[in-house]
């Protein structure tokens, strides 16, 4: 169960606690409280539906960043029968903010890459909070080239607050590394499925995020800059991030309306963190569905469709 509770989750958690107290009371005293418990459970279901169908964009951003939310390796553990992690960009280092490996999902062998955040302070530092350096993008490209060579599809899990803004990152060509990946992924001769599982911030997300399908979990965000970054530029005040999230239309549903998303994957009631097993089962099913579909398409047609898809993105007046 969740240890961190967001403001809008509080009434739900409160009610859940009450129900379990009643249960305990009934068990220890032998008093029949079933009718009351049933009533509260109905109330709980209604409350959950009401709360989560009316979330603001900012609340969805908070869910996308929930510290208990499943990360890439949490999905790997649940959906892959085999996974062998591989390391390093062969030039500079192994960036732990991006994981990569040889993965088997049912009968499908895929190259899996993904941003990886840490759970505790030590792991978070090791993972750099899921903010990659250039070597992370170069590692991802290296294994994607391997996927192309041996005709294995690529599955990319996106979950990053952004590419790291630091001295080393700039010295080693953060911009070049991301640009190169966009260029190479656009024409990589194997199917690519991109799935946003949490945060999709800017070029840091897109750097491993060009593909044939873009799937987004329901409570995720993906935009050109973080709401805080946008707020600090436009309002000179990062605390106005909720307003920026509204203005930039950053949620999965927004991306569907803007014809960027190919599919929105519903989350369990209350969000992915409240039932990671169920979430992973759904993710697995949707990945397999799209993998099978994409593998029917001849590779030249697939690349043509991929480039045409990106060529059509945007909105303007002729």
């Amino acid at each position, binding site marked *: 169960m969740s240890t961190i509770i967001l403001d809008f989750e509080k009434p739900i958690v409160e009610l859940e606690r009450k129900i379990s107290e009643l249960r305990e009371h009934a068990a220890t005293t032998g008093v029949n409280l079933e009718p009351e418990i049933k009533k509260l459970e109905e109330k709980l279901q209604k409350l959950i539906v009401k709360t989560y169908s009316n979330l603001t964009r900012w609340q969805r951003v908070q869910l996308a960043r929930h510290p208990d939310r499943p990360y890439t390796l949490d999905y790997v553990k649940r959906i892959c029968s085999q996974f062998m992690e591989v390391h390093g960009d062969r030039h500079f280092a192994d960036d732990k903010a991006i994981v990569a490996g040889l993965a088997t999902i049912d009968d499908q062998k895929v190259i899996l890459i993904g941003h990886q955040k840490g759970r505790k302070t030590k792991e978070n530092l090791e993972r750099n909070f899921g903010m990659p350096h250039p070597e992370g993008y170069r590692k991802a490209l290296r294994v994607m080239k391997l996927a192309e060579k041996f005709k294995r599809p690529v599955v990319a899990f996106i979950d990053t607050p952004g590419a790291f803004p630091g*001295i080393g990152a700039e010295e080693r060509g953060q911009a070049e590394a991301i640009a190169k990946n966009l260029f190479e992924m656009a024409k990589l001769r194997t199917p690519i499925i991109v799935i946003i599982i949490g945060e999709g911030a*800017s070029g840091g997300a897109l750097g491993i995020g*060009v593909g044939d399908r873009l799937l987004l979990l329901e409570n995720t965000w993906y935009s050109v800059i973080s709401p805080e970054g946008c707020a600090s530029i436009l309002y000179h005040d990062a605390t106005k991030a909720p307003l920026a999230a509204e203005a930039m239309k950053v949620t999965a549903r927004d991306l569907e309306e*803007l014809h960027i998303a190919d599919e929105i994957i519903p989350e369990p009631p209350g969000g992915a963190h409240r039932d990671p097993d169920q979430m992973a089962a759904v993710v697995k099913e949707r990945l397999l569905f799209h993998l099978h579909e994409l593998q029917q398409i001849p590779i030249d047609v697939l690349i043509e469709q991929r480039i045409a898809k990106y060529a059509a993105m945007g909105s303007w007046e002729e």
Partner: protein
Amino acid sequence: MVDWFQRTKKGLLSSEKKVIPDGLWIKCPSCNEYLYKRELDKNLGICTHCRYHFRISCDTYINILLNVFEEFNAHLKSNDPLKFKASKKYADQLKQTMAKTGANEAVKTVKGKLGDHSVVLAVMDFNFIGGSMGSVVGEKIARAIDLAHEQHLPLIIISQSGGARMMEGILSLMQMAKTSAKLAQFHDDGGLYISVLTDPTTGGTTASYAMLGDLILAEPGALIGFAGPRVIKQTIGHELPEGFQRAEFLLEKGFIDVIVERSELKTTLIKILDFFKNE
């Protein structure tokens, strides 16, 4: 689809004033010498004392480089897809910027003659919302790549941009993928693309087409990077090293081919075009 516009050289020169501040004398921010404005203009915005490169307009670049040219897709305009409103309305900002610059967007795309070479040239315009890339900039760049591709012409892009445009959210981000995908196709068919980086080239522009040139040139002293220096300073909590993210720094780190003074840009480009031209 391509809509050709003929612009005269006379009309181009007048907009230059918007970049170099008005008044007869201008103080050089690098050496603090006072420069006579007309001299500075004649010298392509380069300080005669210290060679500091003032920012110049996109029209001036076109003017410096091309003998004759025709602009295309000048009519493309943003339709404010998000109905974006923060401290001000994006729609108003667009209107005001169009009135101020006389342009519809932050890039001009032209086909013309650079010496003897027919080329497709795209020049970004920092005066138009910081040269930011939204849907229209991405689309115009994509169409410029397509035109170069179809007509087997070399492509030159001069970048001058703070990055992707926030006011079009995810659509701006996707322009990075769009332009890079187009360049990938162009590249595979043997197209020549020269990227020229001027001050500043940062964010999503750097992390897409600006860094994808077969050759990458930069003006001296130009700020070039992914993250802006302010953000980096905030993140790491101390001052940045001298010359960090300047063209000379990128040259040293191996990310650009050559630094070219603006006065040498035309001859350098012609040399490259001559070299790669198939007889």
